[in-house]
């Protein structure tokens, strides 16, 4: 099954379709005997916000992890910003990976570094920024996420919501073209969820970053997505704009899933 996200609500009569920013072709992933993703195809055009929904075990996390090169597919190809991510030699992977950033469910901040250092470490060592430049950028980002006063604090001292904001800032500090978000609010106390989601809405609105987002927050998905992909058992069951998926889903499986999570 092939789903080209850019075709669904592209303005009419435009120039030929640009090469999508992210493209998976015939991607298969197995864990032992278990085929988690079966010849999956999909593409995301630059600037889009795509949400992946679906029941537990349907392969959503696996897709994001493959894009971040944390797991390798067994077959197929993955291309990001015109650069082959899989299969590709390590050097090329490193280059292609610069386009991608990820925010994790468990934040995964470096507890041995201050908040500021968490944000400057990679820009200095990977992008070659000077420490001053990196710190300036880090302070701007901390202001964006509302944590300017926490520069010198170590992450374990922060609340979950604050840690996740720092993690978002850390990912943005690398100026990725694509931001991967895997259930970034599910480890948070309920009262902290809204703040993080508002921040992400803000980033979605005010930047041109491409987002791939796995979430169980359906209202959030409806707000920020241009495109929603409904997964089941490693396949895309249905894809479309949020109004269609949440308002008038075509597939019985989608209706069933949505009524279960609501």
């Amino acid at each position: 099954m092939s789903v080209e996200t850019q075709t669904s609500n592209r303005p009419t009569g435009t120039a030929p379709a640009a090469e999508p920013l992210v493209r998976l072709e015939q991607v298969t992933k197995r864990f032992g005997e278990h085929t988690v993703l079966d010849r999956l195809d999909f593409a995301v055009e630059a600037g889009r916000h795509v949400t992946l929904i679906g029941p537990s075990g349907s392969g959503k996390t696996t897709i994001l992890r493959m894009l971040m090169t944390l797991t390798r597919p067994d077959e197929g190809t993955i291309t990001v910003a015109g650069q082959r991510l899989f299969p590709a030699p390590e050097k090329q992977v490193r280059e292609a990976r610069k386009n991608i950033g990820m925010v994790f469910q468990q934040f995964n901040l470096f507890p041995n570094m201050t908040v500021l250092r968490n944000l400057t470490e990679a820009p200095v060592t990977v992008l070659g920024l000077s420490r001053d430049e990196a710190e300036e950028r880090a302070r701007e980002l901390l202001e964006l996420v509302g944590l300017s006063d926490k520069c010198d604090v170590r992450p374990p001292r922060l609340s979950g919501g604050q840690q996740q904001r720092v993690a978002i800032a850390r990912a943005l500090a690398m100026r990725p073209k694509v931001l991967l978000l895997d259930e970034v609010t599910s480890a948070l106390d309920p009262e902290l969820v809204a703040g993080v989601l508002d921040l992400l809405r803000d980033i979605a609105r005010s930047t041109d970053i491409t987002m791939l987002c796995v979430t169980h927050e359906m209202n959030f998905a409806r707000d920020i997505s241009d495109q929603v992909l409904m997964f089941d058992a490693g396949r895309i069951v249905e894809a479309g704009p949020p109004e269609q998926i949440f308002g008038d889903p075509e597939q019985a499986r989608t209706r069933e899933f949505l009524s279960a999570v609501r």
Partner: protein
Amino acid sequence: MNWDWSAVGDFLPYFWKGLLVTLQVLALGSLISFSLGLVWALLCRVPTRWVQWPVGVVTEFVRNTPLLVQLFFLFYVLPEWGLAFSAPATGVVAIGLHYSTYTMQVYRAGIEAVPAGQWEAATALNLPRGRTWRAVILPQALRRVVPALGNYVLSMLKDTPLLMAITVLEMLGQARLFSQERFQFTEPLTVIGVAFVVVSYLASLLLRTLERRLVR
């Protein structure tokens, strides 16, 4: 048997010399075992069998043979191959090498205890492997291993008298020397027994301070 305070007084000059040697062996032996153990632990992570396997065999062998045998081997066999060191140097190397095979396991556990999410975050930020080790993994792993390393320092202290077997005059060696000259055993042995307790108490205080400063 009567306690003779004058024997204690006469033993003290011997004792100080022995104590100095014991402390030197302990300090240098710890240094070697801490650094070499880390090297072993890191080599075990090199993703090829051609490194992992030999390191595994060598360290397993050293860990499972008695320190005394290793001391004799280094002291009597190596010179036959043209590698002769002084007795104290041999002792320090042997005890450091022997304990490195224990500290290696401590480091390995410490490294494995760093959550997978830390590696994943480093990959997501595109940090090079070496930088990931130095800036992310090792600082977290080392902090965790300090208490366990400390225990091996104390246990190393109790193994230092084995060096007597290769003529190193540490505390027990000095006590024996004194006893052979004076035929008085109780006083020197008691003095060094107390000294072992005191040194190990002071060492544990030192280690705990270190631990508090690192584990924060």
